[in-house]
């Protein structure tokens, strides 16, 4: 059935209205307010409408001189990038393998759906519980240490299992791998099997099929998954706080602390900078692929 585009065009705009409204109220408006407030002045008990750059200058205070080593902001971002990068790398590797297995090795659709649901089981509990449940496992007197001690592999409990960068990345991977699996699986399932078969028939090795066919064709899923993981980890302070024993820095924690001390303009300025950096990372990632075209 062919409908002339010119005829329906005036009505199409209305269809976008509900979403545009939600987008405006829950995204544009708060964002504009945050940016506005980031230029305001504040005291211990009040925020004062103004247009000053002090909040931004304060964030980068001491960052140019390098007299006392790296400034707080740089250190915090380096720490955040570190968690972001390793979490991204590991969730990508894991997510790709799981999605690949689900898409190409599981042939029956009911089984596929079933295994897919299995992947979501951890999400039936709150993320705080998922995090906290690592503690009895990894602690000084936890199950892992007790197991190794009883086997005689170690004679002192391993301390870095918990409250370390290791435990932070472990928990983040645990929390966010599904965010990689879903989009990658989604793109893999759409790859035309006959292409894979053709390559196989033409004598391509397993490796060649993965690198020359599967990866390029699931690039959209990889990028979307990466955007999910990177944005979530960049703003995270709960996981890094709990699993890092509150001793590791994250940008989110700094914003959280400032909010608790009623330093809203300072927190807003930090949030704006975090947003700019995150958007830049996403921009770079989308350079690898035109998501709109691929969808």
């Amino acid at each position, binding site marked *: 059935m062919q409908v002339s585009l010119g005829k329906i065009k005036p009505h199409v705009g209305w269809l976008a209205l509900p979403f545009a409204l939600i987008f405006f109220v829950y995204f544009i408006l708060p964002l504009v307010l945050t940016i506005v407030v980031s230029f305001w002045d504040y005291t*211990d*008990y*009040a925020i004062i409408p103004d247009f000053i750059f002090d909040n931004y200058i*304060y964030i980068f205070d001491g960052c140019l001189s390098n007299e006392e080593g790296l400034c*707080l902001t740089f*250190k*915090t971002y380096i*720490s955040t990038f570190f968690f972001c990068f390793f979490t991204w790398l590991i969730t990508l590797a894991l997510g790709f393998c799981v999605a690949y297995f689900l898409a190409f090795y599981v042939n029956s659709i009911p089984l596929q759906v079933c295994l897919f649901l299995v992947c979501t089981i951890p999400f039936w509990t709150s*993320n*705080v519980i998922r995090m*906290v449940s690592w*503690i*009895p496992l990894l*602690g*000084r*007197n*936890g199950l892992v240490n007790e197991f190794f001690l009883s086997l005689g592999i170690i004679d002192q409990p391993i*301390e870095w299992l*918990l*409250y370390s960068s290791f435990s932070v990345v472990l928990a983040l991977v645990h929390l966010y791998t599904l965010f990689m699996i879903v989009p990658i699986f989604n793109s893999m399932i759409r790859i035309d099997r006959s292409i894979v078969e053709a390559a196989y028939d033409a004598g391509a090795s397993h490796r060649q099929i993965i690198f020359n066919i599967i990866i390029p064709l699931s690039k959209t899923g990889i990028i979307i998954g990466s955007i999910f993981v990177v944005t979530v980890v960049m*703003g*995270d*302070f*709960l996981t890094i*706080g*709990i699993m890092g*024993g*509150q*001793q*590791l*820095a994250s940008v989110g*924690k*700094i914003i*959280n*602390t*400032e909010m*608790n*001390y*009623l*330093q809203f303009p*300072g927190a807003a300025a930090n949030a704006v900078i975090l947003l700019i950096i995150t958007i830049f990372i996403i921009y770079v990632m989308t350079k690898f692929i035109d998501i709109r075209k691929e969808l």
Partner: protein
Amino acid sequence: MKNKKLSRRQILKLSAGTVAATGLGLYAPAVISSDPITLRYLGTAVSMGDEVQKKLFEDTGLKVKFIAVTTDEVTKRVLTQPNSFDIVDTEYFSLPKLVPSGNILGMDTKRIKEWDNVTSIFTKGMTPEGKKVGLQGTAPSKVMYLEGSTGKKFAGDVTQYATLIPTIYNADTLGIRPDLIGRPINSWAELLNPEFKGKAATLNIPSIGIMDAAMVVEAMGEYKYPDKGNMTKSEIDLTMKIFTEAKKSGQFRAFWTDFNESVNLMASGETVIQSMWSPAITAVKAQGKECIYQPLKEGYRAWAAGFALPKTTKGKTADAVYDFVNWYLSGWVGAYLNRQGYYSAVLPTAKQYMSEDEWGFWMEGKAAKGDILSPTGDKLASAGEIRDGGSYEDRMGGVACWNATMDENKYMVRKWNEMVAA
């Protein structure tokens, strides 16, 4: 992602809030009240269990609708939405932020029946037996009065108008695992003792953490602060430098931000010495682990909370608030608080509601004659046991400083964040 913090002030909140809401709903129709007033009570809920609300309704016919949030959130609400509640329960150290905003009124002490019996710690800065209490930090006696009912400044002298009518307070110290340490601990300096490397913890709440840090620095003999609760920039630098070095050398197993984290660290043996709050000690003990709220020779860090009236509460509702506060101080609640290991503001009235054994254990530092029970019926101590830190005089008389808001608050928060990032 919202950070759900559980502080000591909230432990009872979840149960109290939900149970109370349903409990009251069922309870109300049974009593015929000529003019029922429901007060919107903003606070952290440490003192408002289900029983308290029932008893309140029985005695006065007043109802309370509880708005339970964190301490920081209470401050935010008072500043940004002063008309969203009729009475607020907040901490004294928040006052330097709240009072200049003009959003809270001075409470007329002439309308508080038991005002003359409020413990002298609040009104004079000394214990009932005349022992001087440390006044560093935002000590209640320094911010107790306003010049008038609408003043934005603290009064230097005693006036008719109080900023907060005190309700609950306590003296905090370090918690230790005596079974894992195996020797006596008597100084704050032990927190940074290399002997406990990787087994110590402090809290990641800058305004309280820095006070504990200052107690440690002073105990180590590194520096003597004129006022720990109001440091200069260089004093903040010095304090944070010592803690940053300790952190870098691996002294701390973790920092904690909520009550449950502190309990887990201690109960699992991840830490053996740490900054802690008194109900957390009880929670560790409830798991069958030895845990002591260790009195230290340098003294305690104290905190206190009380009721304030927002400027938007007027007329009949304001009268009801005074009725409520008078009821609160009339003894029943005081006994309820004392039984949890906190202290009540009016001691003589609370005493009437406690047994001799209870009063002896909680307030006089005497050995318990029988089992000591919490208000919910859990056993907290058996016959022969003595409360950690002893009597009210010993504990409150040993206070060295109070939770505080510093003039250099912004700088302090930044330096604290730098330590965390180091």
